């Protein structure tokens, strides 16, 4: 399932616990949704660049197992944006549940 427009929020959520690189972020999202949220990994990086342009995440290079990797971490503005997105999502999902629950 690919719920359009939620990828940036899912990325921010994946980065709340710890800084991470692209591959790990993709795997975290897939694992935590038990494979339900399946997106094409090539679209992850444009979303990460967009978040970086907006100042919601920042990137830096670090060496892991002798390989230079680009890591991403959430910024203060990113945490604020995530809190807002989370509240909006809760409101939306409650509304949809109320309607679908009655059917």
């Amino acid at each position, binding site marked *: 399932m690919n719920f359009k427009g939620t990828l940036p929020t899912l990325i921010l959520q994946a980065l709340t616990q710890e800084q991470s*690189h*692209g*591959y*790990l972020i*993709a*795997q975290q999202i897939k694992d935590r949704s038990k494979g339900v949220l399946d*997106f*094409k*990994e*090539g*679209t992850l*990086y*444009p*979303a990460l*660049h*967009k978040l970086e*342009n907006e*100042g919601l995440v920042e990137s830096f290079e670090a060496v892991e197992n002798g*390989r230079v*990797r*680009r890591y991403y971490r959430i910024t203060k503005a990113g945490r604020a944006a995530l809190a807002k997105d989370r509240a909006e999502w809760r409101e939306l999902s409650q509304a949809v549940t109320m309607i679908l629950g009655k059917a």
Partner: protein
Amino acid sequence: MTSLETWLNQATRHLSIDSAAQVRSEIQEHYQSALEAASSSGASAKDADQTAIAALGDAKLANRQYRRVLLTSAEARLLRDGNREARFVCSRSYARPVYLAISLVALCAAIGTLHSGFLDVACAFLVVATGTGFMFAAPILPVYTPLCARVVRCFKWLVLLSAIGFVYGPNTLKWSWLLFSCLGPLGWAEWTRFSIRRKLPVSQWPRHLYL
């Protein structure tokens, strides 16, 4: 050519050299991690490669998304060459008063010809005065914030459109084909600058992006 190379060639089409290098580096890194994960779960090299490429998805879709967030080759060119007029005005100390004098002379000529009753000639002089005045004054205006920059840009377009309306008057629509062809390149450059502003953080904006 490997399947990854084919994917990368499609995904980096029309991106600037720097953007393409960035995409290549991050996707190669991602692909390598996917290969390692597949190999550690016992997949053959061929299967691991196919799984990793399939997980990346459609390269054309990725390219469309990359072009929305990273600089394209056309934008990088505009960014590199777009500063020429500002440099031309600002790098010569003697030049500024000379350029501004051109505008003042044109303004005086407009007033003079208007007094003499040559309305058409006065209009032409007025357009030259406002156009050159703005073009030469803009690079030396104290515009250092995005809000200020937005006001200056709005004023620039307002002056330009008013000048056109003033010169052509009721015949503006009749001459629209000429206006569109003359203003087309200007509009395209402005649209490209708008796109660059969305992609670059304000701290990285060169001077000409403000104007």
